[in-house]
């Protein structure tokens, strides 16, 4: 932090214009957002020309937009001029030198999660020897993927190596002016992931950012684009199952999925960013736009998310059911404890014929946490025989927390079948007593009951992820009853 501030001071102390130009080669741009910053950013990354035009277009639109205020969350206004929009990957020299320098609380959490020591080092940003296990794992992965013809690389790399692919699909699901945060992301995104699965290929393994060597420090404006060509399948695991070390307050990521004819994309997230302390200080603001398009007949997109972190979550993974007989699914567990706020849900837009969508949302509120489900099911005129099933359950763990459900329905076609079920329940004293009478501690009883409540979502997660998710929930709920 010290070195960062010194750098800023250095910039501020100079003539503005000059400082800008001469310091192009430095690691971090001074805070502030304007057209010059975007140009420099694009240049530094050696991006193709269309990318800069695209960013500029997004920036122009963003300037005219206002922060969305409709979500059920509260936070002070964000000063976008106080953020630095380009920072080269921090060199390992800046990070802690050994685990001794890392916050012991963080390490304690890692221990509870059963994360091996070498991984703990990596996650805490400690310089790790080149012989680190996953490096070799990653290499093996790359080879296997290349053999299958699957492209899996950072967004920057994709812009260098596959500019046409990127150009074809970028912004086709989340247009650059889609919403305030998406426009901001489009203008200044730093990096992210790119996946392309060719026709007829079943991706031989679950893809995870964890195994992408340069996964760390992709920054606060992450961009992900996943394209599944006809008859292909891919399962993608986002982020790290361990608590991420992260100094960024604001995260505004965009994820776009394109599923062509007969293809399937399964996208799973376990999000466990810093939620702030028990008093509600600090924590990440997570404002994400995630959307997938089932662009050909019989395509399927399935979102599964377990959200336990962040101070504020604003996130609506959605599916555009464009092709006929396409399928969209959304399975979500969102937990808010202490002063956390979550406003999350989904949009299912039925466009083609015989489309179907399923929404299973489980909200858990503890402490003074506020949890809102916001879901839109939209059936367009031509979408004959659309089907939707939605189930939104809320579990309250205290008397001071809140659960809110906002289901929106727009149906323009009479052949649609829509079912919606919602329940709100308080964690049962009788359930807790029953478990404790059988010998379980109160904490284990809570964790058992909550995990049972989330079962319908957890069973959609890949096995190891599901285990991590269960552990995360227990940790996040520690001390929340009584």
């Amino acid at each position, binding site marked *: 932090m010290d070195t960062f501030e010194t750098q800023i001071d250095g910039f501020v102390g100079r003539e503005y214009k000059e400082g800008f130009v001469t310091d192009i080669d430095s690691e971090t741009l001074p805070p502030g957002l304007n057209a010059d910053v975007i140009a420099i950013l694009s240049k530094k990354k050696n991006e193709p020309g269309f990318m800069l035009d695209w960013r500029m277009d997004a920036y122009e639109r963003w300037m005219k937009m206002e922060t969305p205020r409709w979500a059920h969350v509260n936070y002070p206004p964000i000063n976008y001029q106080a953020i630095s929009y380009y920072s080269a990957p921090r060199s390992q020299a800046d990070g802690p030198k050994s685990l001794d320098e890392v916050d012991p609380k963080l390490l304690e959490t890692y221990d509870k999660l059963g994360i091996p020591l070498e991984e703990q080092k990596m996650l805490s940003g400690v310089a790790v020897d080149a012989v680190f296990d996953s490096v070799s794992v990653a290499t093996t992965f790359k080879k296997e993927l290349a053999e299958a013809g699957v492209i899996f690389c950072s967004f920057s790399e994709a812009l260098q190596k596959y500019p046409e692919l990127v150009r074809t699909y970028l912004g086709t699901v989340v247009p650059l002016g889609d919403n305030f945060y998406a426009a901001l992301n489009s203008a200044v995104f730093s990096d992210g992931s790119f996946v392309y699965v060719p026709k007829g290929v079943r991706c031989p393994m679950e893809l995870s950012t964890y195994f992408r060597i340069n996964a760390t420090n992709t920054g606060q404006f992450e961009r992900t684009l996943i394209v599944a060509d006809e008859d292909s399948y891919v399962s993608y695991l986002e982020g790290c199952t361990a608590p991420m070390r992260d100094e960024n307050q604001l995260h505004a990521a965009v994820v776009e999925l394109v599923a062509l004819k007969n293809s399937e994309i399964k996208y799973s997230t376990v999000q466990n960013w810093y939620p702030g302390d028990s008093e509600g200080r600090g924590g990440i603001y997570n404002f994400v736009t995630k959307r997938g398009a089932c662009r050909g007949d019989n395509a399927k997109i399935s979102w599964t998310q377990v959200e336990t972190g962040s101070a504020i979550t604003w996130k609506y993974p959605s599916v555009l059911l464009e092709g006929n007989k396409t399928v969209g699914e959304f399975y979500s567990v969102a937990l808010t404890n202490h002063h956390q706020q979550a406003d999350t849900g989904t949009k299912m837009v039925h466009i083609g014929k015989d489309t179907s969508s399923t929404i299973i949302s489980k909200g858990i509120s503890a402490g003074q946490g506020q949890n809102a489900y916001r879901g839109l099911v939209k059936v367009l005129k031509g979408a004959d025989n659309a089907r939707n099933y939605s189930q939104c359950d809320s579990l309250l763990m205290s008397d001071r927390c809140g659960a809110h459900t906002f289901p929106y329905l727009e149906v323009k076609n009479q052949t649609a079948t829509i079912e919606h079920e919602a329940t709100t329940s308080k964690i049962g004293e009788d359930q807790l*007593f029953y478990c404790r009478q059988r010998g379980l501690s109160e904490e284990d009883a809570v964790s058992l009951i909550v995990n049972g409540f989330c079962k319908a979502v957890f069973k959609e997660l890949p096995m190891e992820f599901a285990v991590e998710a269960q552990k995360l929930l227990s940790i996040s709920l520690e001390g929340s009853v009584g």
Partner: protein
Amino acid sequence: MLAISDLRVEVDGKQILNGLDLEVCPGEIHAIMGPNGSGKSTLANVIAGRDGYDVKGGSIFYMGNNLLDLLPEERARQGIFLAFQYPVEIPGVANIYLLKEAINAIRSSKEEKELDAIDFLSLVRDKLKLLDMKEEFLYRSVNQGFSGGEKKRNEIFQMAMLEPTLAILDETDSGLDIDALKVVSDGVNALRAADRSIILVTHYQRLLNYIVPDYVHVLANGQVIRSGDHSLAAELEESGYSWIGGGGEGKSLGASVG
């Protein structure tokens, strides 16, 4: 094993138990009968340590220790088991999973090793057979969608798995069909042991024909107003509870009933 004296308990400011005495020795079976609302389930819950029951006076000693100092889970780990009058549903949690957690919690409190999967499964199969239950019940959510009788049977199955020192069966017979009553009673009888005591709360003499108690107590208005042997149950079946009278103090039955 269990010594309750002059126990006074309030729920939501209302006095439910008014100076209750009960002594249970190892290996004994005590039946507790009494009219609806007389405090039988309250007694069971207080022994098990449920929140919301204010002990205003008296004491409960269990194996020489003050039971009232312990949390519910500590009591469970020391061998107290309550078969609930209304077993609770826990959606999404497999029956077998709760059992495994329970057994391991109890074992680890005694510093015993966790049961490995093979030992656990073979134990489970034995006990399923004892209660004549289908294996599919293991994988269903705890009590969810179980019929009334299945829930009761599941309670005794759990009891068989956890092998308690003191088991309190709160109206386990209610809701069981005639055949099920026989199976469950056989199960309980199979669990009788010199170092295991059982308190049976019931309304019906029929159960006591299968599980023969050493003592029968009549609870009314929060007190044990009469105690006797097995024959007392038969007598209650005949005469009902009309003789108790509505007042706070239970009257003794006259000389006509020896």
